[in-house]
C-alpha cells in the first residue's frame, strides 16, 4: 500500500489530539474513467480509493488499486488489466500533491470552495506532474471533494494498438468523487 497513507494515519491517530487533527480521510472514494469513442463505450469505476487530506497544509494523497476498477464486460476488464495497465506489474495509481490555494478554504465554515490541486500522478510506473481544479464542500463534519481531469494515455506509456485506435480515446477522462471524514471522530 502507500506507506505514506498508513504512516500518516498511524501517526496522526497517535500524536494529534482529536479536536486539532485537521486531517481527513476516506477508504471509499469513487474514481471513474472514460476513454471511449462514438464507436465503443469504455468506462470503469473504482469505489475503493483511499485518500488523506491535511486541511492545515492542503497536502493531499490519493491511491487506487487498478484491479478494483469494475467494468460492464469481462473482456474489457481483462484487457484493461493485462494489456493496457499491466496491473500485475503496476498494481496502484497514486497522486501526491497539495491544494495550491488552501488558504482560501475556511474549513470551519460550511460552503463550497473552488480549489486548484497540483502534484505528481503515477500511473503504469510513470510519474507526471498534473494540475487540475476541484470543488471542496465543507459540511458539518465531513468534506466532499469533486473534480476531474484528462490523462493522455501515451504520457504514461499506455499503448493503444492501431487496430483499436478508433475505439479508444487517447485521452482518458477521470472523475473523482470523495467524501472525507475526520481522521479522529
Amino acid at each position, binding site marked *: 500500500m502507500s506507506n505514506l497513507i498508513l504512516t500518516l494515519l498511524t501517526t496522526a491517530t497517535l500524536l494529534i489530539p482529536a479536536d486539532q487533527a485537521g486531517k481527513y480521510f476516506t477508504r*471509499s472514494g469513487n474514481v471513474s474513467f472514460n476513454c471511449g469513442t462514438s464507436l465503443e463505450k469504455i468506462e470503469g469505476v473504482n469505489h*475503493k480509493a483511499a485518500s488523506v487530506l491535511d486541511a492545515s497544509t492542503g497536502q493531499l494523497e490519493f491511491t487506487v488499486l487498478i484491479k478494483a476498477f*469494475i467494468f460492464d464486460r469481462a473482456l474489457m476488464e481483462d484487457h484493461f488489466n493485462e494489456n493496457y495497465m499491466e496491473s500485475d506489474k503496476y498494481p496502484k495509481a497514486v497522486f501526491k500533491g497539495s491544494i495550491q490555494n488552501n488558504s482560501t478554504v475556511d474549513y470551519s465554515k460550511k460552503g463550497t470552495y473552488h480549489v486548484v490541486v497540483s502534484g505528481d500522478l503515477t500511473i503504469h510506473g510513470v510519474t507526471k506532474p498534473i494540475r487540475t481544479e476541484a470543488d471542496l464542500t465543507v459540511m458539518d463534519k465531513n468534506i466532499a471533494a469533486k473534480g476531474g481531469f484528462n490523462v493522455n494515455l501515451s504520457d504514461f506509456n499506455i499503448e493503444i494498438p492501431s487496430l483499436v485506435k478508433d475505439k479508444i480515446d487517447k485521452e482518458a477522462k477521470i472523475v473523482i468523487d470523495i467524501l472525507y471524514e475526520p481522521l479522529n471522530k
Partner: protein
Amino acid sequence: MKSKPVLIISIILLFFTGALCTGYYLYNKKPADLRNLKPDVIIECADLLDQFANDEQQADSVFMNRVIQVHGTVSGISTDPQGILSINLGDDQHVMMVSCEMTEEFQNASSGIETGSQVTVKGQCCGMLMDIILVKCILIN
C-alpha cells in the same frame, strides 16, 4: 457431384457463423458471477490480515486475483459517494480491515447487517491499500 461444393460451403458458413456467435458472446460477456465460482482460498479474517501485514508482497502472490471466501466479524458498513456499500471485517488486534465491496445484487441484503455479527463473504482480492480490498463480493451467510 453438385452436393460436394454445397456441403463444403455449408460447413464453412457454419464455421463462420459459430465463430461470430462465439465472438459476440465473449465480447459481451459480463464479469464472472462469484456465486458460480468455487473459492480459491477459504480463510479467517484475522489470518488474512496477518498475512498481508507480515509480508504484503508474499500475500499478493498468494491472494491477488483469487476468489477468497473470508469469515469474520463485521466492524462496520461503509458506502462510497455513489452509495455503493462495503462490508468491513476486522477486530481490535488489527489496524487494517478486510473491506468487501458488495455486488449490486447484495447491496440491499448487506445494508441491514449489524456491527459485531459474524459473516462469511466471497469476493475477488485486489490487494491492499489502507485495508485489504475484495470486490464483486457476495454474502455466503
